[in-house]
């Protein structure tokens, strides 16, 4: 029994089944989406244990052989992302059961949510470029609809902006795919890599690279293309902000970008230079912009752009150590940024406001929210025992090892900047007196909202286990091995 197709079948079946019963039985959306996401995480963890011995798993749809037929491929990198996506989707679905009660028609939310998870799984297991594009569009369109789910003025405006920019990015991507198809006469990624390796690089590859950097860079929100992200992330319902920032920009942007540049084209010094340039601009500009924000979700959104810059920097340097740093930072950032966004939602519903200047004494009011928030912020800003510190220091060491001390200096400076704006944001909110003027709006958070936050906080403390042998190293190494094959030699 091959388990790979179930990664798409389960979310799609859940998405189509929820409208049937969702309106009559209120709780069915919660139950179906939690059951679907927990089985998806089970399947992806099982696949991860298979990948440790077998390296590549493949499923050929309808028994058509690989270059002609559609194939679904799972290797170390896909399974690394699959585990992250599906576990975070499970925790977010658990959190949504408490949070989403303030909206009507919750079944629509869960349908779109499951479609988004299905689309992301589709991107991760697609073996050819066009299926990857289709799955990417499913996830993106579900994302546009979910950003506008609250039907408030800000959400609609952000969703329109996101949809227009996303459509432009997708058109560029598709133009690149069309050019690549006419150059290589195939769409299968492995086959395409062979054809390009045999034909040799030409000018068209450079042009296609530019189109892909534009398209996927827009989905990943690297700085010249980042304008949609702060609006969309701050106006979306909180569980969706956590999904968008935690996994969607990484799957649609970083995963697809590195799949194409490492495994199809092979990394060249020019592409590496462009990626490093975009990464440095993202890190610095978004870090400075984050300082001026007083809306807690907007600050977190700008911080996301800055941290995506770190990941892109690690991928751009393209030595084994820097790729390891980038992937480990991706893991840490997914966990801690989802945690912080879920936390922001909990703070919003318990304090009644999102303005950092108006809230105080979160730790005294609710220790669960306070301590998890502290752990998340410490992990992202790089305080030593937590995961974020190790991933940043690996990236900095990789810069020095690759003989680029300027980049190492910038990375250190931006990490101090990160520490600065989290210090500014977190300290007055968490500590300080309890405050009484907000009490009439505040209501305690439910258990289903607290449990995901506690699990994510524990994960961000123990994520350093991925670096130690015998505990999780083979999981990380499998992902690194896939990317190192295409790195600069």
């Amino acid at each position, binding site marked *: 029994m091959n388990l790979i*197709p179930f990664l798409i079948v389960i979310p*799609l079946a859940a998405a*189509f*089944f929820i*409208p*049937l019963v969702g*309106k009559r039985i209120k709780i069915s959306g919660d139950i179906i989406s939690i059951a679907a996401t927990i089985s998806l995480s089970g399947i992806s963890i099982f696949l991860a244990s298979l990948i440790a011995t077998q390296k590549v798993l493949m499923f050929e*749809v*309808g028994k058509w052989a690989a270059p002609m037929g559609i194939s679904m491929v799972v290797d170390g990198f896909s399974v690394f992302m699959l585990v992250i996506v599906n576990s975070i989707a499970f925790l977010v679905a658990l959190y949504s059961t408490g949070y989403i009660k303030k909206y009507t028609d919750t079944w629509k939310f869960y349908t779109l949510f499951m479609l988004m998870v299905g689309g992301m799984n589709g991107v991760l297991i697609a073996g050819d470029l066009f299926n990857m594009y289709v799955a990417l569009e499913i996830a993106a369109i579900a994302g546009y609809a979910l950003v506008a789910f609250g039907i408030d003025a800000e959400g609609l405006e952000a969703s329109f902006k996101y949809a227009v920019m996303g459509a432009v990015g997708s058109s560029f991507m598709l133009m690149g795919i069309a050019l690549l198809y006419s150059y290589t006469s195939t769409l299968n990624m492995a086959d395409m890599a062979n054809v390009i390796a045999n034909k040799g690089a030409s000018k068209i590859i450079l042009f296609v690279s530019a189109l892909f950097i534009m398209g996927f860079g827009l989905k990943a929100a690297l700085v010249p293309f980042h304008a949609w992200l702060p609006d969309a992330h701050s106006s979306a319902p909180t569980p969706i902000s956590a999904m968008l920032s935690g996994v969607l920009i990484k799957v649609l942007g970083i995963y697809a970008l590195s799949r194409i540049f490492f495994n199809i084209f092979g990394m060249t010094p020019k592409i590496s230079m462009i990626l490093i340039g975009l990464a440095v601009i993202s890190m610095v500009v978004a870090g400075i912009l984050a300082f001026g924000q007083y809306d807690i979700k907007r600050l977190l959104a700008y911080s996301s752009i800055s941290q995506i810059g770190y990941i892109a920097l690690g991928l751009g340097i393209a030595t084994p150590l820097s790729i390891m740093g980038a992937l480990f930072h991706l893991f840490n950032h997914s966990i801690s940024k989802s945690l912080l966004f879920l936390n922001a939602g909990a703070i919003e519903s318990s304090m009644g406001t999102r303005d950092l200047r108006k809230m105080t004494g979160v730790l005294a009011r609710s220790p669960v929210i306070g301590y998890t928030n502290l752990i998340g912020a410490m992990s992202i800003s790089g305080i030593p025992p937590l995961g974020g510190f190790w991933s940043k220091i690996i990236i900095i060491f990789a810069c020095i090892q690759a003989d680029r001390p300027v980049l190492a200096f910038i990375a250190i400076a931006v990490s101090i900047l990160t520490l600065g704006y989290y210090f500014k944001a977190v300290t007055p909110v968490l500590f300080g007196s309890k405050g009484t003027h907000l009490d009439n709006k505040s209501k305690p958070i439910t258990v289903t909202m607290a449990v995901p936050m506690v699990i994510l906080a524990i994960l961000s403390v123990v994520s350093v286990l991925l670096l130690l042998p015998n505990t999780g190293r083979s999981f990380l190494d499998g992902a690194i091995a896939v990317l190192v094959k295409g790195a600069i030699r």
Partner: protein
Amino acid sequence: MDTVKDSKGMTLIVKTVTRITIGFILLYGIYISLNGDSAPGGGFAGGVIIALSLVHVMLAFGKEVALKRLHSYAMRFSISIASLVFLYVVMIRWHGSYSHIVIPLAEMVIVGAGLFAIFVALVLLSKSDKDSE
């Protein structure tokens, strides 16, 4: 059907012609979707024709009559059931060939009901817009 004499919708001529042709249009849609493998056509084209026939009824008789024929819950129900059937057929057949009569029919239902649902949704959205003014 006394809706022909009703003042809503278009003129008597349009309503009469619609009543006569609607069955043939539906039949043509089903024919197109069943003959996709040997002649130009298929589930998608057939579904579009069926959706257009429903839109035709809606333009001629007004929104109430069309929604009485295909209720919004029925639309959602048929889309979901057809998608699940589609998924099921593909799932049990994914080791072998796909020549199965259910696939074009399910696609026809999805496309037909889906396009009509989108049309209805946009009409209702712009209606609520006028009411609020």
